[in-house]
């Protein structure tokens, strides 16, 4: 390993949990993605890839992902986290992000995870838009266990929800004039950049074709699926219902669990400091994954 390569890796060992955390850059120079690996002390019993959401949701979910990675690693599961190019510490500009670049970044991270986890059972965990990315990896790992937080089925509806959040923020500042009509923004064609609450967003990320690999991927795979709804919001419930309907008749189980607290995602109201909101999805998901891994061990063993 050259000095230049070594300089791109930083490691920290948690002696109490026996977990090694490694931060590094993956991929070619000037096109690198930033990645974290959480490795348990012994041989991993499974390998989990976390596909983050985007924009404000990336920020809202970040701490949860760290906590989940650490809990899983302490339970013997290797975990890979990463930043899509154009986000976080990775190379690239926000406007460069497409669904295909996100899928490629996730594949790069998955490849890294498999290298470090010696062929262990793969688990894919995705939040919001990251769920679509995780679903697009399923042809590569058709037996993966899958956990999705607040899944998105209809990307154009999702964009309208984000735009609605913008309108509501304006509404709260009642001295500001309302936004111009936005209802047709998601329906326009083309792949231009639009400004959504300060984020430069590529319109193609929210077109219908993006979701098709997700549903097809989940339908065709053999692993169990967990859908976690972060609160009983009617819109999110509809997305979950759409997925469960699409997966009817599937051989492997599809389980839906709902958190008590509602995740505000696009609102920075400070609600994340509520402990339950931070940890409940983590506890649910880690419990579900470890339970399924134990069941798999019983069947195989």
């Amino acid at each position, binding site marked *: 390993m050259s000095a230049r390569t070594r300089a791109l890796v930083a490691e920290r060992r948690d002696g109490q949990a026996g977990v090694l955390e490694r931060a590094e850059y993956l991929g070619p120079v000037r096109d690198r993605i930033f990645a974290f690996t959480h490795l348990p002390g012994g041989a991993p019993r499974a390998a989990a890839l976390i596909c983050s959401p985007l924009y404000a949701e990336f920020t809202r979910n970040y701490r949860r992902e760290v906590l989940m990675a650490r809990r899983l690693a302490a339970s013997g599961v290797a975990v890979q986290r990463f930043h899509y190019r154009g986000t976080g510490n990775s190379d690239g500009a926000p406007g460069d992000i497409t669904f295909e670049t996100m899928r490629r970044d996730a594949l790069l991270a998955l490849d890294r995870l498999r290298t470090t986890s010696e062929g262990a059972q793969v688990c894919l965990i995705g939040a919001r838009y990251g769920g679509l990315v995780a679903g697009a990896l399923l042809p590569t790992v058709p037996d993966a266990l899958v956990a999705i937080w607040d899944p998105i089925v209809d990307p154009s509806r999702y964009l309208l929800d984000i735009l609605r*959040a913008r309108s509501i923020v304006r509404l709260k500042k009642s001295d500001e004039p309302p936004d*111009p009509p936005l209802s047709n923004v998601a329906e326009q064609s083309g792949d231009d950049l639009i400004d959504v609450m300060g984020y430069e967003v590529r319109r193609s990320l929210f077109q219908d074709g993006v979701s098709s690999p997700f549903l097809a991927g989940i339908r065709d795979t053999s692993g169990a699926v967990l859908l976690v709804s972060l609160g009983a919001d009617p819109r999110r419930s509809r997305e979950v219902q759409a997925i469960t309907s699409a997966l009817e008749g599937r051989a492997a189980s599809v389980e839906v669990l709902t958190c008590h607290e509602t995740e505000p995602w696009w609102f920075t109201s400070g609600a994340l400091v509520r402990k339950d909101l931070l940890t409940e999805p983590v506890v649910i998901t880690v419990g579900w994954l470890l339970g399924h891994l134990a069941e798999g061990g019983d069947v195989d063993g």
Partner: protein
Amino acid sequence: MIEDTVRRFISEEVAQDGSSPAISDDYPLLERQVLDSLGLFQLVAFLEAEFRIEIQDEELVPSNFGTVSDIARLVDEKRR
């Protein structure tokens, strides 16, 4: 009554800190900060699901969400 349904949802589901006063039809929901941004988002989703209406973004203005009466009027107009 639409007003009662709206009032119940606000009191039980979205009022901040659970310490909202008895909400009369003309109590200023935005001015008195009964509804925060997430609460408004949830309220709009609830209204759409409960009354089978679609609220356009340009309708998200204080004159439609300032009081329970304002909200009830908006719902009533959308249902016609």
